[in-house]
């Protein structure tokens, strides 16, 4: 056997599209997972909804770019700049394919979900909203899909309406039709809730909104790392996500917008790359997506995100989904068996997240005890304070999963929770 074959087998587990999903093999792509985090305690990383870990190919892509191709994009006549531009635009193409968008120019690079929503609030909202208009969000939004609209409310006098959720953490869509008045200008909802794991019926939401001519923005930050998303099948007007939750680097994310929507929007920031011509009297803007990419972009981040997506798409995605569904079911069942534990968010359709509280123990204390056992989870309000208010808890503990988590890591979580009870109960 040649070393060549061995090397490629080790570095690209998904290279063979027929290869069934094998979690142990995939874990080898994530060197960070194999470490002792406290003395004698192996890392169990269950904070994937905050940010995912990065496969080796993504780190290699960053190194390769800076080591061989680094130059500014869209500007140079020289070979290096052409290469950097090709790689940057190549990443855009990969993202377009990943989302099944129609055209590359519908993919705008931004810093992340937060910036993408702010870009739409500025470019679309400030352009088209008038006093008395309405934006509809849901009760389970991340603060990044609340605050930008509140800022517009205070600035323009628009109104923010909220789709309520029930005590399982499911949106009550019966009320949506009433919220969609003639003055409703946008529906902006989360695809998968980061605090509860609820998968929202976004197809239905888009249908209802479009039936009244209202465009829809979907926050896909917690959806894209788990399921295939087809923005055309969803018919979303805007779809946004962060690269760092999708095995890519921080500081890079995506705004997908239908071309006609993006074209109608005003630019977000002014500067280089976003212009066609500038005189002191008048500036004409560049075409989309460049109109929204002022200044030198996060070139290496975009390229590495493209690499992350390529890595992800090469996996057996049906196998990934089945694995993750099994993990979530197992975690839910095992946590229910821990005395005093109550799961917050029990929707029928869930992905990747189990939020819970434990009687008599504050989530922050759970988090500290788990950490010392090597188990990394998040505690707090998860940037979704209205969700905490709904469930009347100050905070929750949240275990969130990625495709590289295993059943034995859930054992570790449950064993660590027994330790919590030992200390506090």
């Amino acid at each position, binding site marked *: 056997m040649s070393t060549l074959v061995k090397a490629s087998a080790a570095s690209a587990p998904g290279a063979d599209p027929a290869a069934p999903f094998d979690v142990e093999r995939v874990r080898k792509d994530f060197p960070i997972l194999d470490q002792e985090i406290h003395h004698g305690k192996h890392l169990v990383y269950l904070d994937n909804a905050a940010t995912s870990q990065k496969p080796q190919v993504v780190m290699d892509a960053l190194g390769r770019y800076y080591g061989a191709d680094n130059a500014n994009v869209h500007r140079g006549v020289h070979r290096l700049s052409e290469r950097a531009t090709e790689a940057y635009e190549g990443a855009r193409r990969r993202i377009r394919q990943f989302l099944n968008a129609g055209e590359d120019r519908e993919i705008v690079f931004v810093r992340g979900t937060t910036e993408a929503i702010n870009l739409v609030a500025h470019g679309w909202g400030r352009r088209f909203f008038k006093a008395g208009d309405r934006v509809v969000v849901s009760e389970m939004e991340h603060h990044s899909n609340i605050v930008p609209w509140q800022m517009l409310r205070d600035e323009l006098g628009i109104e923010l309406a909220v789709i309520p959720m029930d005590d399982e953490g499911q949106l009550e869509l019966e009320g949506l039709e009433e919220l969609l008045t003639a003055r409703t200008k946008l529906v902006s909802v989360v695809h998968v809730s980061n605090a509860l794991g609820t998968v929202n019926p976004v197809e239905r939401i888009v249908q209802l909104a479009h039936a009244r001519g209202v465009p829809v923005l979907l926050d896909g930050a917690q959806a894209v790392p788990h399921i295939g998303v087809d923005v055309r099948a969803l018919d979303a007007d805007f779809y946004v996500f962060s690269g760092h939750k999708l095995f890519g680097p921080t500081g890079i994310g995506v705004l997908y917008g239908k071309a006609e929507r993006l074209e109608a929007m005003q630019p977000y920031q002014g500067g280089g790359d976003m212009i066609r011509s500038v005189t002191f009297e008048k500036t004409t803007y560049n075409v989309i997506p460049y109109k929204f990419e002022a200044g030198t972009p996060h070139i290496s981040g975009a390229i590495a995100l493209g690499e992350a997506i390529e890595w992800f798409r090469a996996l057996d995605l049906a196998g990934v989904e089945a694995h993750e569904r099994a993990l979530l079911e197992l975690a839910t069942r095992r946590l229910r068996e821990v005395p005093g534990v109550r799961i917050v968010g029990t929707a029928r359709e869930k992905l990747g997240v189990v939020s819970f509280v434990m009687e008599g123990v504050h989530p922050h204390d759970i988090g500290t005890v788990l950490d010392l056992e090597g188990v990394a989870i998040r505690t*707090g309000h998860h940037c979704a304070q209205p969700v905490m208010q709904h469930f009347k808890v100050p905070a929750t503990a949240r275990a969130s999963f990625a495709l590289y988590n295993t059943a034995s890591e859930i054992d570790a979580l449950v064993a660590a929770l027994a330790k919590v009870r030992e200390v506090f109960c």
Partner: protein
Amino acid sequence: MSDLRDLYQEVILDHSKKPRNYRRMEDSCSRAEGFNPLCGDQLVLFVKVASGIIQDISFEGSGCAISKASASMMTGAVKGKTLEEADRVFEHFHKMVTGQPGDPFDAEILGKLAVFSGVCEFPARVKCASLAWHTLKAALKGEGQQVTTE
């Protein structure tokens, strides 16, 4: 290596389960609210000051074991102290929880509060331990103003 018992000492667990001076005070001369947005801890502190001395102090609220125990033990530590003395205790307490493990601290001034010396090994928990103290400072600032206007 940091150990669970360095942080969650018996005294701390006891105070978190049975917080002392945990009550509303209707006739307090000043109150302040403390909030730790990171973990959702919140407490309301009630203080009664006369002749520059903390005559009575109590609190209410919800929070993690560390913040609850800290509030409970703080009320015990500063009751009957002058404002300057309370300030000095806070200074020492703050230095201890934000210092390095093994740093010396003044056991005489801190007394029972020395059980929080393990907190400095847990940077994520420093805010929990100091929330009540920052709230006290805010309450006393309000009190200082009230006193001068009287």
